[in-house]
């Protein structure tokens, strides 16, 4: 189902659909088609990310309130976290490289970069698990202090979303290998990239919130 959609010409753009036949499928006769302002899939994804952001706004406000309590003892982040962050940033960069190959009419060059993205993503998850182990070995457990609780919970939720991203990555990779993406435009990759970069940004935000601010 998705392939045929992904092969559609790029997003209809902000013009009122139905006039210029922006929707090739239309309803068969070019009249009275929907007024398409944005590509629905992309728009839906952005809405979803907005919703996800609101959840983290909720966590942020809880964190701010909780940090004011008198028993707040800060947690020192393990150095591994900074390495993990670099890995995640790198994975976003390789993803952009893959998209550049696609845009530059080099579909064969896409999958190596894409593979690197997924591998780095997996490495990040492994690194996060390792960071948890490091902390646990030092005696910092989930319920030990509020700061611990927030760190474990937020990094865990972020990690779960990244695992979902990795499943999506697998789908995208298979398609890229089959050269299912039309060179010159980056629709399918674009949605995946939006999600992936969102998670990178989210992690950096969480890191700043938990350990820098």
């Amino acid at each position, binding site marked *: *189902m*998705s392939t*045929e*959609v*992904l092969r*559609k010409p790029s997003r209809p753009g902000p013009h009122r*659909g*139905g*006039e210029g036949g922006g*929707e090739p*499928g*239309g*309803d*068969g*006769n070019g*009249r*009275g*088609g*929907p*007024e*398409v*302002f*944005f*590509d*629905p*899939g*992309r*728009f*839906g*994804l952005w*809405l*979803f990310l*907005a*919703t*996800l*952001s*609101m*959840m983290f*706004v*909720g*966590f942020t406000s*809880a964190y701010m*309130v*909780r940090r004011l*309590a*008198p*028993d*707040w003892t800060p947690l020192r982040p393990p150095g591994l976290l900074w390495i993990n962050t670099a890995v995640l940033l790198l994975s976003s960069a390789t993803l952009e490289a893959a998209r550049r190959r696609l845009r530059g009419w080099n579909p064969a060059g896409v999958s190596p970069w894409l593979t690197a993205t997924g591998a780095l993503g997996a490495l990040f998850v492994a690194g996060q698990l390792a960071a948890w182990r490091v902390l646990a070995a030092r005696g910092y457990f*989930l*319920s030990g*202090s*509020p700061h611990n*609780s927030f760190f474990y*919970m937020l990094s865990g*939720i972020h990690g779960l979303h990244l695992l979902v991203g990795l499943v*999506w990555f697998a789908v*995208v990779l298979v398609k890229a290998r089959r050269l299912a993406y039309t060179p010159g435009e980056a629709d*399918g990759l674009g*949605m995946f990239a939006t*999600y992936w970069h969102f998670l990178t940004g989210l992690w950096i935000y969480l890191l700043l919130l938990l350990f820098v601010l």
Partner: protein
Amino acid sequence: MTDMAHAPEAHAAEAHAHAEEAFIWKYVFSKNHRVIGIQYYVTAMVMALVAGLLAMLIRLQLAWPQRDWGVLAKLFPMGYDVGGGFGVMRPEFYAMLFTMHGTIMVFFVLSTAPVSGFGNILIPLQAGARDMAFPFLNGLSYWTFFVGCVVILSSFFVGAGAAAGGWTAYPPLSALKGAVPGSETGQTFWIIGMVFFIASFTMGGLNFVTTIINLRTKGLTPLRMPMTLWAMFLVAVLGLLAFPALVAACLMLIFDRHFGTSFFLPTGLVLNNVPLLGPDGKTFLHQGGSPLLWQHLFWFLGHPEVYILMLPALGFTSDILVTFARKPLFGYKSMVGALWAIAGLSFIVWGHHMFVSGMNPYLGMAFAVGTILIAVPSAVKVFNWLATLRGARIRFNTPMLWAVGVVSLFISGGLSGVWLAQSAPDIQLHDTMFVAAHFHLIMAGAALFGVFGATSYWFPKMFGRMMNDTLGKAHFWFTFVTYYGTFFPMHYIGIAGHLRRIYDPYQYEFLKPLQPINQLITISALILGSSQILFFVNFFWSAFAGKKATENPWQANGLEWTTASPPPHGNWPGPIPEVHRWPYEYANPDFPKDHVMQHEPLTAAEMEVKAAEGPSRHEH
């Protein structure tokens, strides 16, 4: 996620192929918006039966608390003490009743039937789309909701029973397993059920917003949208922005309950005179959390949630009122503006649930400001409705009765909000039956009446048949009179100090004189409950054997009335109609007909006027 971009236009071509689909794909795991809408609707009505039954038990208890209910004790062995031949309700069962009544009614009935049910049925039809933007996601959202329902219902049968911490689930009561029996496994089921519900509602919201923004037919500019479509749009936005806060809160509550964290649990908890110590046996298990934090997160969702229940009913009411008044909606733009204002203000008023919570009094002031201001757009809506009725030619069919019923409830329930919004009178009224009267009239009542009105009005588009008008009217009158009979006297006992959520009010001397009023309320509630049988009989009988409906049985103007009843797969067999005017063109003296539908092209005379007025004034 990539599958979300399913092109709805493809459905028209596929329509004939779908006809041969197996039953299970057509009616069970359907991706058709109308089928999904009906699934949502019917499931919500089944949940309403359950929650309504719980309410009846609550009312019996409040009227005759120490009475021996032998039959009930046999029906609900977990809820009644049967030792010594007695059938007296257990207090923990009572707590489960009001907790689950509230939870099921607010989320699984009154958010679901109007929003997920009628939203799915109506949005593509009113917007002129073949289906929702993401049909697969839509089907998934229904089944996610279904799992949520199963989880919530099954919580009655686990461990010590269902959640008993109130529908607001305030910690520490909901977090400490020893605080109340329902806070054992029942509360965990409650949280899981809620997370499923929220996931489903989010998927639905993505669909609603995307469909309304992206898939409107040509000519359907925002200021030509019917009020129902506006309400659905705002409701979806509210849901998307507000529910995530509750997900965050639920996750933290799970961590507090199961993993020993202290997000909501303060230092120094002592249960039954025994300090709750950590593993070291010297210090408290929980340290420094804030119970108020849960309340803030909960009500940040909870208040917009109230409007999620109500806005669709306000939309239905506007649409129905106009059709049966045969007169244009008065003040269309201010009606849209009022919806926006209510939706916007709903995000900054949550603290009015917390005036006596111990929150900083200055915050209380800020929340009182927003809350009192919300009366302005609400009043505008009432005045516009009244002005719509002035000079009308009203036809009192069943849908119209429900619509004027909503107006009546909106007035009655809204005005008591002015009392509660002032933080100082709220000191006396908070957590009394006055509040129960207020929200049952305005939120629950308006939403319920809105759903009943919408059901009888759009029944042709659901099942291709008409509901029986006589049965419908009988149902309305029984419901209308007993609804007021049940909830209006709660104002009085509330002012007299009658507490909410109380198993036996007559433990208190000052509440003893109120027992006769409670008995009156209970009798009214029992009639209210039993008269819903009329609705269910009418619903199922009409769905299978009602009079066949024509395309536009009410002579209404919206796009949904330009296609067959029920609409075929893809909604219009031919091209999607274009929109040329607003949906409320009734009684225009320039036309020979009494009403002009949205898709009818402008006449030559109208074109001239439009050209003279310039391009910016195009909506009427």
